[in-house]
């Protein structure tokens, strides 16, 4: 094509070509438009204001249905569900305190997320560190119980969350029995967990005044040869000596 064959119309011409001034519109049409606009704004301004109402957390969809919907992207769906659950306490215009959440439903959601992504750790983080912050011991316990049940399914990967729950049970709930139970389970079922987690039961026993039991377990641990690091072994031996001297000097008091 040679230059000069095509000549574009100017923008000004295009915009003005199909339009007339608004003055050419009949007054009755302008009046109808104005009246309709006034009626609409008047109607809307007299509508009752929408009130923020908290919605209850519903049951999560079935795992099989979610697997079908995810088209093989189970992890992505699990992450989206985690986001939804975590944001659920902030609904439009209202913020729901944790104590008003149905913790049974929260557990169901976390269980579903873990079923979709069993290697994912985030639901256990939420269950051991976020949702137990509620000032309600029953709800806190239900979250720790959830962590414990899920720990039983895969102790090698999930011991750290039970360890955190054990510490929280000891210091926040002041439930030494529960803390000791969790610590015992870590020592029994997670042989590859680091020493501090497996030895936690000994120090909980010591904290609650069960010096004799702590001493026996510490002695058995040293004698088993399981601890090979010299510094750790030295620390444990010193600790055992301290326990023995403490037992001699004072009568142990049970917590």
């Amino acid at each position: 094509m040679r230059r000069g064959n095509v000549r574009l119309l100017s923008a000004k011409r295009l915009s003005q070509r199909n339009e007339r001034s608004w003055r050419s519109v009949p007054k009755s049409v302008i009046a109808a438009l104005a009246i309709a606009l006034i009626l609409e704004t008047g109607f809307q301004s007299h509508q009752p204001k929408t009130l923020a109402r908290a919605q209850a957390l519903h049951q999560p969809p079935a795992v099989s249905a979610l697997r079908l919907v995810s088209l093989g992207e189970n992890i992505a769906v699990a992450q989206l569900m985690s986001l939804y659950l975590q944001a659920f306490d902030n609904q439009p215009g209202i913020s729901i305190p944790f104590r008003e959440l149905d913790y049974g439903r929260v557990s169901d959601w976390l269980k579903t997320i873990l079923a979709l992504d069993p290697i994912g750790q985030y639901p256990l983080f939420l269950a051991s560190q976020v949702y137990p912050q509620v000032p309600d011991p029953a709800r806190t316990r239900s979250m720790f119980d959830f962590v414990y049940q899920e720990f039983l399914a895969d102790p090698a990967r999930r011991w750290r969350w039970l360890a955190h729950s054990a510490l929280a049970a000891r210091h926040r709930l002041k439930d030494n029995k529960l803390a000791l139970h969790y610590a015992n389970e870590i020592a029994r079922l997670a042989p590859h967990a680091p020493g501090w987690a497996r030895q936690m039961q000994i120090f909980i026993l010591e904290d609650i005044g069960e010096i004799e039991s702590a001493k026996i377990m510490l002695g058995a641990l040293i004698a088993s040869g399981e601890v090979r690091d010299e510094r750790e072994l030295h620390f444990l031996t010193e600790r055992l000596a301290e326990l023995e001297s403490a037992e001699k000097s004072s009568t142990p008091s049970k917590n």
Partner: protein
Amino acid sequence: MLIAVLVATLAALSQSILAAKGGVLAWGVSLALELVIMAALSLFCIVTFTQLMPAMCFVTGFYIVARALSAIRLISKSPLSGESPSQHVMSWLVDTLALVLPGFDRYAPTAWLADGGAQWSAVGTASVEAAIYTSLLCAAATFDFYRRNV
């Protein structure tokens, strides 16, 4: 408008298999009113924009905003949003927008089908709103039509 009523009737008929008849009737009427407004808006947009794509984008955007406006208003009034001047301006803008948009969140709620207990007073309010808004859109389309050199 006939298309809007036809679509709403078909949707209501399919729902009547499972849901309670009273709830389905109210839901169907409410859906028909919502679709009538959308049909009038589509007509206005195609007259004003003269091209399909801009008209379609506007109608889609309008519908999404009208559906979500109550939630947007609640969020703008939430104490978590803060007290800054920009927040107040945004809240005022959202409130102004709510004066000229239909409250589609009040139309055809699923709860009427799932839980029953349809409110005919809400259908009555929606009818008044649909009549006013359709008149507004028709007036706007006529206004625009008179400005064109046909």
